[in-house]
């Protein structure tokens, strides 16, 4: 059995996760990275994506992360996310609609559309749906 490390996912609204886990895989801005106990101290920004972790019982769990930062210490991982959702909290209907809306906006390519924002919205929606 692998040694445990502590995972904390905090958002401005509340702490989403605060428990012992076996491993964590997070979407770093320079690429995905995995963490086991004893990882070197490490600080990175995160992009929109999926945080995957194996809880104390060895069960795989998934979280949607809306960008943020991760601090890795040998026995602890802290994720600071602007928002995060557990799989059961994701609203599929809303995500699907958001995806369609964003796709439409990107396809239209009107001059007044904020492309960066539309792309971010699309990415968020796609990742939400993928987790579900």
């Amino acid at each position: 059995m692998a040694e445990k490390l502590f995972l904390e996912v905090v958002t401005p609204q509340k702490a989403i996760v605060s428990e012992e886990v076996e491993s964590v895989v997070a979407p770093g801005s320079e690429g995905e990275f995995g963490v086991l106990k004893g990882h070197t101290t490490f600080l990175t920004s995160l992009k929109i994506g999926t945080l995957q972790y194996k809880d104390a019982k060895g069960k795989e769990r998934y979280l949607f992360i809306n960008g943020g930062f991760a601090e890795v210490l040998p026995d602890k991982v802290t994720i600071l996310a602007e928002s995060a959702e557990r799989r059961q909290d994701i609203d599929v209907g809303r995500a699907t609609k958001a995806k369609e809306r964003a796709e439409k906006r990107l396809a239209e390519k009107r001059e007044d559309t904020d492309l960066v924002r539309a792309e971010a919205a699309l990415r968020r929606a796609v990742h939400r749906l993928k987790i579900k």
Partner: protein
Amino acid sequence: MATLKEVKSKIVSVKKTRQITSAMKMVATSRLRGAQNSMEAFKPYASKFAEVLGSIAGKSGEDASPLLVPRDEVKKVALILCTSDRGLCGGFNTNLISKADKLIKSELDGKQISFICFGKKGRDWAKKQSQPIEDEFIGVVGGNFEFSVASSSGQKLIDNFLAGTVDEVYLVYSEFINMAKHIPTIKQILPIPSLDGVSEGSAEKEKDKDGQFLPEHICEPSSDALLGEMLPKNIFIQIYDALLQTSTSEHAARMSSMENATKACGDIIEELQTIYNKTRQAGITADLMDIVGGAEALKG
């Protein structure tokens, strides 16, 4: 002297007022609890963020981000004014507004000022002063709001600052100290004041906790790039924090002012009741005198 009927109806109306104020107090109490909870929930995020920010700020140079550089000549200033949407909370809004007014008339005298108003009261005041209102957010303070409110308005400010349409940004909000004490506070958020204080504070905290400094982090991307990404977030955090504190203060202020009003109603009712009793007695005495006088007259 007022007639019995008049006094009676006055008592009834004051009693009704008391009912309303005490109900408002109860509403404010429960909202206050909610606001305090969200303030508590925000704390772990804010403190962790400050800690991480401090540890990389120490490593990065002054020129890590354009947000740190003060302008040589400050002409245009943006003021974020946090007030409540609704009144009946004592001097809460007046205090905040006079704080902002003083700032404008002293330090910022002669500069071009634009407002970003959270809350109706502050907006109405800015309108009356015929100051330009850049942005207004109603229904945020005192209600339930999300972090995205702070980040979207903060992002706009940062864009304006980088584009040069704004040289300095100040935040006026009410700091929540405890139930009875909330202080109108001014904070400069752009350009970001020196980070030295932040890094020292958090370094000490880390030392206390582990008995030693945290080892150097490996940063990805570079620590400067990371800092550049974190600084705007830090501004959002400050705005969000200010909104939370203002909301909490608003409910606390309303609660205490409604409690005072309820008490005052009680006092008035007592006074009116005394008047009522006295008037009633005077009436009875007068009636008795009449009867006795009449009886005496009949006796001859």
